[in-house]
């Protein structure tokens, strides 16, 4: 498992040179607290995000909860919720580390083949991941949609900076995209 710092070291070691370009790492350090807030925002809302993403996926495809569907009966629905939480957890780890290696090595490696063997529909999984991607962006920006969330609206109440952590939103989105491309 690598983080942003050890990734720089491993690539410098390949050419037996010192780590010369430290500007990206300095930026990582300078925005460190923002990153921790972003990780905290996702971790604190994780169960809400997971259940909403799976519920949204099912709303769009009711066949999943009818007999023969992949979220029927409760046992398979529980497995689905568990998997969504696992995927979100590894995305959170990757966001904390600033590097996708933990997500690749421990979650995505072989996931597509496993789902194919178990008969899990990847289009539905991808849809749930897409919903979590949108939710993660909203929580990192601390700007969840009142129209969509309604009574379930949750805010972290962090002091939000002008750009609403645009780079972190982009980074988190890239990890979700990584999951989507690994599955499809």
């Amino acid at each position, binding site marked *: *498992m690598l983080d942003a*710092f050890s990734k720089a070291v491993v690539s410098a070691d390949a050419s037996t040179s010192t780590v010369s370009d430290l500007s990206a790492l300095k930026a990582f350090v300078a925005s460190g607290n923002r990153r*921790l807030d972003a990780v905290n925002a*996702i971790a604190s809302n994780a169960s809400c995000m997971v259940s909403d993403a799976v519920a949204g996926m099912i709303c769009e495809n009711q066949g999943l909860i009818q007999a023969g569907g992949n979220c029927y009966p409760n046992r398979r629905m529980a497995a689905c919720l568990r998997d969504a939480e696992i995927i979100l957890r590894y995305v*959170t780890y990757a966001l*904390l*580390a600033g590097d996708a290696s933990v997500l690749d090595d421990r979650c995505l490696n072989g996931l597509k083949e496993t789902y194919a063997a178990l008969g899990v529909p990847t289009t539905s999984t991808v849809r749930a991941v897409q919903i979590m991607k949108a939710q993660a962006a909203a929580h990192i920006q601390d700007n969840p949609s009142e129209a969509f969330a309604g009574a379930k609206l949750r805010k972290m109440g962090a002091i939000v900076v002008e750009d609403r952590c645009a780079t972190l939103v982009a980074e988190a989105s890239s990890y979700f995209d990584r999951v989507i491309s690994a599955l499809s």
Partner: protein
Amino acid sequence: MKSVVTTAIASADAAGRFPSTSDLESVQGSIQRATARLEAAEKLAANLDNVAKEAYDACIKKYPYLNEAGQANSNDTFKAKCHRDIKHYLRLVQYCLVVGGTGPLDEWGIAGQREVYRALSLPTAPYVEALSFARNRGCAPRDMSAQALVEYNALLDYAINSLS
């Protein structure tokens, strides 16, 4: 590669939970020290050749027998290799400064070190002397800030201890 961040993630993953407040606290502690570490890494990278040269000269000065026929510093090839080895340790120290842990030194320097030096019948005392010279040569604020020097010296001490 072991660092504060990867350690926190590995323990969270082993327990199957999201990063907890205490995980984030430990990462934050590492990030707070990172400015000094990166400063030391930057300064060391800029002067790596000079630092390595001075350290190499110091250890040959202390152990002149190494220049005698059959010894480890007796011809140009050997001299170049000795100098390279010192530079190698300093490069790993720079990596450790970047990572914020001793992972690079542990994995690429110390693991197997004793066996290699024994097989090649190299003495470790000159390495200790070279690294000790570098350890005592650094000066704040001439070379880097005081906090950066603390981080740099701590890693040199770690390397010295592994050799002695």
